[in-house]
């Protein structure tokens, strides 16, 4: 007989918990399924920027003096930028605030789901809806408002990184602002007001050469102004650069600002994200 009794451990080797990437993908699929099952939300999300594009581009359609473009053409990239921000910033800001209020987040926090999986799921959702939204606006723009698809591989590349960086920055800002409203009911107003103001001072509704410089400078602190500018650079002829504040597209600067917002937005999310609303502290 051995003197040391070796007791079999009650639990075998430490169990492997499911990984964040895989769960993030599954959460993404689930988020997308939930999104598309809410018919009115789907219609509202996708129709809103199209309706605005139709209204603005049809009301203002004159040639812009000395720029070689029409006002309608200016509205196509502007609405695409607003569409990207609406599918990311606005929809996440509102939906996460509601999920927090309805204790969906708290329930997830009570499971061993890694927090990263939740955010990855949201990113998949935003990527799919953002791509769809952009594709719809691009289709409308090329079909009715005389905008051409990017003419070279370089322009497509610019389109891709502006989309990716802009979407990421706005999604992170949306996650961050979701912690601001006290309840799910107030979320819509809290999120929509800043978005609306930004659309006015970033060159979405009002042409960039009409907005007072001081307003534009405030707009320039946020991603939307740079997304609009970059997409104009992708879709408009070089002659339209005269309308810009700096007289050029400034692609390098756009990448820098949007990149900085991605990093800053991530830091903001990590610092402020709450799984419960304030009452449940």
């Amino acid at each position, binding site marked *: 007989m051995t003197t040391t009794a070796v007791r079999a451990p009650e639990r075998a080797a430490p169990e*492997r918990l499911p990984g964040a990437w895989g769960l993030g993908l599954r959460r993404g699929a*689930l988020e997308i*399924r*939930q999104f598309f*099952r809410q018919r009115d939300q789907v219609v509202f999300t996708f129709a809103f920027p199209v309706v605005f594009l139709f209204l603005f581009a049809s009301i203002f359609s004159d040639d812009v003096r000395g720029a070689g473009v029409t006002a309608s053409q200016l509205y196509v990239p502007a609405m695409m930028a607003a569409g990207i921000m609406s599918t990311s910033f606005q929809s996440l800001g509102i939906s996460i605030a509601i999920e927090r209020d309805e204790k*969906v987040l708290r*329930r997830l926090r009570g499971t*061993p789901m*890694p927090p990263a999986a939740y955010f990855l799921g949201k990113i998949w959702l935003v990527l799919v809806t953002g791509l769809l939204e952009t594709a719809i606006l691009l289709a409308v723009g090329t079909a009715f408002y005389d905008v051409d698809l990017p003419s070279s591989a370089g322009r497509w590349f610019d389109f891709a990184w502006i989309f990716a960086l802009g979407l990421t920055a706005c999604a992170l800002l949306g996650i961050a602002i979701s912690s601001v409203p006290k309840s799910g009911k107030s979320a819509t107003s809290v999120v929509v007001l800043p978005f609306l103001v930004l659309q006015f001072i970033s060159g979405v509704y009002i042409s960039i050469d009409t907005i007072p410089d001081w307003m534009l400078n405030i707009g320039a602190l946020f991603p939307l102004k740079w997304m609009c500018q970059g997409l104009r650079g992708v879709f408009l002829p070089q002659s339209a650069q005269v309308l810009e504040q700096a007289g050029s597209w400034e692609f390098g600067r756009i990448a820098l600002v949007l990149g900085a917002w991605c990093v800053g937005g991530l830091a903001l999310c990590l610092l402020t994200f709450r799984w419960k609303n304030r009452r449940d*502290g």
Partner: protein
Amino acid sequence: MTAHANERAVDVRGLRKQYGDVTAVDGIDLGIRRGEVFGLLGPNGAGKSTTVEILQGQRTRDAGEVMVLGADPAAATRAWRSRVGIVWQDESAPAELTVRETVRHFARYYPRPRDPEEVIGLVGLEAKASSRIKALSGGQRRRLDVALGVIGGPELLLLDEPTTGFDPAARRQFWDLIRLLADEGTTILLTTHYLEEAEALADRLAVVARGRVVAEGVPAELRDRYGTGATVTWTDTGGTPRTERTDTPTKTVAELMRRFDGEIPGLRVSRPTLEDVYLRLTGQEDAR
């Protein structure tokens, strides 16, 4: 250290929690053994939910020591969360998904989940498995909550008023489920304000009132310890009903026999029920 079978699943000492000026939990001690079904009984606002939320790792505490499955829930890890099942008081499942989609999805969070179809059957939602959650009744949603609480095959299940909104049949079915899980060795803590539920399920009970444990023990033992005395009821000669509370009911009946010289009209002698004990302990006697 290895986990010993006699180690306590839950160990709470001097737990306190205040919300502003209101003291919700005022020095609670609890010890729950592994494999035990423990009932936390008390009126609304007694501090039951706050206590359970602290044990879940969902709420901070102001003072006290808390160990749940050998760890402080305030520093919960993913591995710890995978061993603890939670059934919340308010339902919060995604409305647009079906029961099956939701249960299957939650199963993926756990290293060793139970079979989703089996769990759907255990809570009696087979017929609703393909229905969207928004189409479920309140009681059916609660049953889904129970399903999501047990899908991970937890060692410890924390249930906060799990049967609120259940019809009697669903409640019986839920009791069977709890007994089944207990037989499998799951440690269960449930809060309730249904006395018959606590009596039917719990191996041991703690009665909580105003943030403190006012009594603790096996249900029958509680009744014997605190349920002293009896109530004697009869009808007086004038036809008026009379009630007397006494520690010596036999003596009272003997006196009445002398007075009535034989048969006592409307005589009834009753021992306090667990409900009487509960109401007395929680200071709600007058509510009767």
